[in-house]
């Protein structure tokens, strides 16, 4: 049977449009306003209160460097953000395509073991980037 009725306006559709609009405004603001300049953005509350870097620390600066085509600089601010970005973009894009009923094949089933590895990886990254000694301090933003 062919689909003839217009798509019902669901919460999912609204939130996808909202995320796209917010993302566009955010990217434009981030391109213009350099997060490396103190005072352009507030310091992260986690860093302010604990004095520690969280796994997301340096994301704004990394994305700003990526917007200016500086991949090496971006990796220096937050390698985790840069490495996970392709997966995040892919996931949001396929999710938006499914929302308008474009069939997108699902990626292969991830073995649960890999999710545990990922979890440990994030926590280890979180701890190591706070160690102020030579090889680990490279992970700090």
């Amino acid at each position, binding site marked *: 049977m062919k689909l003839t009725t217009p798509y019902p306006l669901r919460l999912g559709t609204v939130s996808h449009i909202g995320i796209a609009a917010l993302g566009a405004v955010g990217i434009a603001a981030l391109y213009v306003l350099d997060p490396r300049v103190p005072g352009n953005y507030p310091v992260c509350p986690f860093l302010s209160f604990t004095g520690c870097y*969280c796994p997301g620390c340096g994301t704004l600066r990394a994305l700003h460097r990526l917007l200016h085509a500086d991949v090496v600089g971006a990796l220096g601010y937050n390698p985790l953000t840069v490495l996970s970005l392709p997966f995040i973009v892919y996931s949001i894009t396929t999710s938006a395509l*499914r929302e308008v*009923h474009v069939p997108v094949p699902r990626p292969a089933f*991830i*073995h649960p073991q890999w999710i545990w590895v990922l*979890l440990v990886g*994030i926590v280890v990254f979180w701890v190591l980037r706070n160690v102020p000694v030579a090889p680990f301090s490279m992970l700090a933003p």
Partner: protein
Amino acid sequence: MYCTNCGEKAGESDKFCTNCGAAISETLEEAGGAEKDPPLGGESTAPPHVPNYLVQAILVTIFCCLPFGIVSIVFAAQVNGHVAAGDIPNARRASNLAKTWAWVAFIGGLVIVLSWVALVLFSGILTELSDEFGTL
């Protein structure tokens, strides 16, 4: 009839899945009119897709810096563990928990960041005001 997108049970006349919103008749046709009425919770040749919300869980873990994101990743891993074992009801349960904790982390992070930005702006205005009154 079952939704071929998420595996949720659907009425015969439903055009859209009540769980994930996928067009049911369309997806069924594309699957070549695949299996109809697989035994509930039993093993079928193609296990239903149970969303594990892994991407959302990682996003909130990295960017909200709250421990709730880690809880969400743990449940995401459990979803795939249960699916691999063919235990779909428990996979659904873990899936719902993964979704819930991702939301908790997201809203918690949003509230903290927004109130933090408001506080920074407010204190900035206060400093400017006191500077102005200081020169009077």
